[in-house]
């Protein structure tokens, strides 16, 4: 049986050259479908990756009970020390807990094209670098505590105007100079960093946004969480940092991803009709060939399978071409959505999805023509020629 499938399929593939343009309908159809879908998904995938990369299972974030996003949270100055002394937090060399009082505000900036955008300015307290060791200075120097100065992420530098060392950023109490550029490899790269306490003064807002702590070990989350939830002075949620960003990332990219899948599905339906058309006419053009094979003793099943295999080969070729175009155009490109700076991504997982999409189209688009090919009476087909 397998041998028969192999022989019939090989025969089909050898004759593909004579049906070149006809076959191209399937290839182009799937290339367009998968190319468009992966280009659209490159935004949501890249953005989700940037969020995921920002989380760390070794950290826990403390937010106001019930909030979904960081900026909605607020931790009072009275609550902050209570959180910092809770058990389960890793200690620095000086014996102090690695807890960062974070403050966030959104800062209006001009995008490179001159349109109005905004990014997040984040306050980092004295243990901030201990909690977030991924922050590396790429140029210039670190900001100094107590001084009205800030550092900008490499992503922010690429997406916004006036982001060079020495440029000034307008903040509530005047202009702060940029003294350095930092890298993190995650979503933080699109933001600005300064000293928390100085930012508190500047914002005239005596509260922090969240607390981020480094856990003594990934397992000490429960200890930490328990200590905070039983404390009646606090009304907070404690979430493992990686889980937090996984949820926020999924939530913030859901609509974009959905849009990509919807467009991908609609185009796949269009490509499916093209595939059906091509395979039906391929089967009818090769009626004599197929009938001859059947007369020679080849079964109906191998003939049917060979038709589906041909549709698969063409579809998957198309999908790979589409994926290659999407990858060449967008993968790794820096982009901005809302205030999130991230790299567009056409990942192997996305390409795999495109191939599965194409295989599904080929399956349906090849099935009906294959049934017709297999069912056609041999004598009638031979006589028709």
């Amino acid at each position: 049986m397998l041998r028969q499938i192999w022989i019939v399929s090989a025969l089909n593939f050898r004759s593909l050259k004579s049906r070149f343009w006809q076959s191209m309908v399937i290839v182009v159809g799937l290339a367009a479908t998968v190319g468009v879908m992966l280009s659209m998904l490159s935004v949501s995938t890249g953005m989700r990756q940037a969020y995921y990369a920002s989380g760390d299972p070794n950290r826990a974030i403390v937010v106001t009970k019930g909030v979904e996003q960081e900026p909605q949270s607020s931790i009072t100055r009275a609550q902050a020390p209570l959180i910092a002394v809770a058990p389960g937090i890793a200690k620095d060399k000086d014996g102090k807990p690695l807890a960062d009082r974070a403050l966030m505000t959104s800062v209006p900036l001009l995008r490179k094209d001159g349109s109005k955008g905004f990014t997040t300015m984040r306050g980092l307290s004295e243990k901030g670098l201990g909690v977030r060791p991924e922050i590396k200075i790429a140029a210039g120097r670190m900001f100094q505590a107590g001084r009205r100065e800030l550092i900008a992420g490499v992503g922010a530098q690429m997406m916004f105007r006036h982001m060079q060392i020495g440029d000034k950023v307008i903040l509530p109490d005047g202009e702060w100079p940029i003294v350095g550029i930092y890298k993190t490899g995650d979503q933080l790269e699109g933001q600005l960093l300064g000293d928390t306490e100085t930012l508190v003064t500047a914002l005239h807002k005596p509260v922090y946004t969240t607390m981020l702590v480094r856990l003594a070990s990934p397992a000490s989350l429960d200890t930490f969480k328990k200590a905070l939830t039983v404390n009646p002075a606090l009304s907070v949620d404690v979430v493992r940092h990686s889980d937090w960003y996984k949820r926020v990332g999924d939530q913030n990219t859901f609509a974009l991803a959905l849009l990509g899948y919807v467009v991908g599905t609609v185009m796949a339906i269009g490509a499916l009709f093209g595939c059906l058309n091509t395979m039906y006419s391929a089967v009818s053009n090769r009626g004599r060939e197929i009938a001859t094979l059947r007369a020679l003793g080849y079964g109906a099943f191998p003939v049917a399978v060979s038709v589906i295999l041909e549709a698969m080969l063409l579809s998957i070729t198309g999908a790979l071409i589409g994926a290659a175009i999407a990858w060449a155009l967008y993968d790794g490109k820096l982009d901005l959505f809302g205030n999130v700076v991230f790299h567009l991504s056409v990942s192997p997982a996305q390409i795999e999805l495109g191939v599965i999409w194409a295989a599904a189209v080929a399956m349906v688009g090849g099935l009906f023509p294959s049934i017709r090919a297999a069912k056609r009476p041999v004598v009638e087909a031979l006589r028709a020629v």
Partner: protein
Amino acid sequence: MRYLPLIWSAVMRKPARTILTLLSVTVAFTLFGLMIGLNATFDEIAARARADRIFTNARFGGNGMPIAVAHQIAAIPGVKVVTAVSGIAGYVQDPKNQVFVAMVDSNLPKVFGDWGISQDLWDVVQKDRTGIVMSESQATRWHKKIGDTFTMVSKQMKRADGSSAWTFKVLAIGPDFQQNSNGYIFGNYDYIDKARPLADQGKIGEADLLANDPATSTELAARIDHAFANSATPLVTITEKLARAGNDFGGLDIKKITRGIALAGMFMVLFLTGNGIAESVRERFAEFATLKTIGFSSRAVTMLVVLEAALPCILGAALGVGIAAFLAGKIPALMPPGFGIPLPTMSPMVMLWAAISAFTVALLSAALPILRLTQMDIASALSGRT
């Protein structure tokens, strides 16, 4: 007209091919309609945006602007009327059901009269401090009718007693407007202001105003920013016209994306129709030779092929745009609430572009077969030697 039977028989020669081609073209034009229709909506929003309406926000932070700022702005020369806006963001019953209520003062209809909030409507809402007006879409979403109570929870906006539940009375239901598929809920600013803890009272999130002269409104916006540059609350002020001018969608160039998708769909269809017509002409080569023999001119034969190619394209385009128009109306029900993308509009421009694209696809698909037909040697074609 007399060619019609000829074209019909050509098209129906292989009905399966014709129907599949038509279906594929229809799907591509459905996508085309939705994408280019979305652009049309953005254009319409930009066109309807008023040059004399100006939005002022605190440069930093949400509900952080003293209401005095609104009064001071009202006193700036060139400002006609200012309305103070605050907002409560929260949820209904479950954090998944996000909702936003804009709390506005008595000047709302003066500044936003063209958004469906008439003076009469707003008077009704203002009779009760806890009154709100919901757009039809929001009323449907929360299953509310006039006289119902609407309760939401806001973690960000606490009441003076520490509770986070806000209760409103639905006093009116207003018309939706197309630019905002999410609809709206407006309530009285007075209500949240007096209900909040003392420290939070007198704060607003936004001041929106009308300028006396649309021509100088950009300059007025700059003047407002300048006046508050060194105050405790620096502002960002922008005219509605400028705010809606870009194809801005969170920094993504939505027009480039939608056009790209529409174009990819057309490209896909071009291969399909091109191949279909080429195949059809190849199969009937001898028939065309016969037509020429009995006196059909080259032009007539060309017309036949073009029309044969155009038929599924034009029909598919019409069907596709029709389906797109139908789907556009269904989008709010199909998409998760709060999706926030405006509805595509099937404006005359969209239909024109669809027609142009359909003709272009038809002409391009017919080009190669026509070339073959004009170079045809009738004698050898008739004998089947080509």
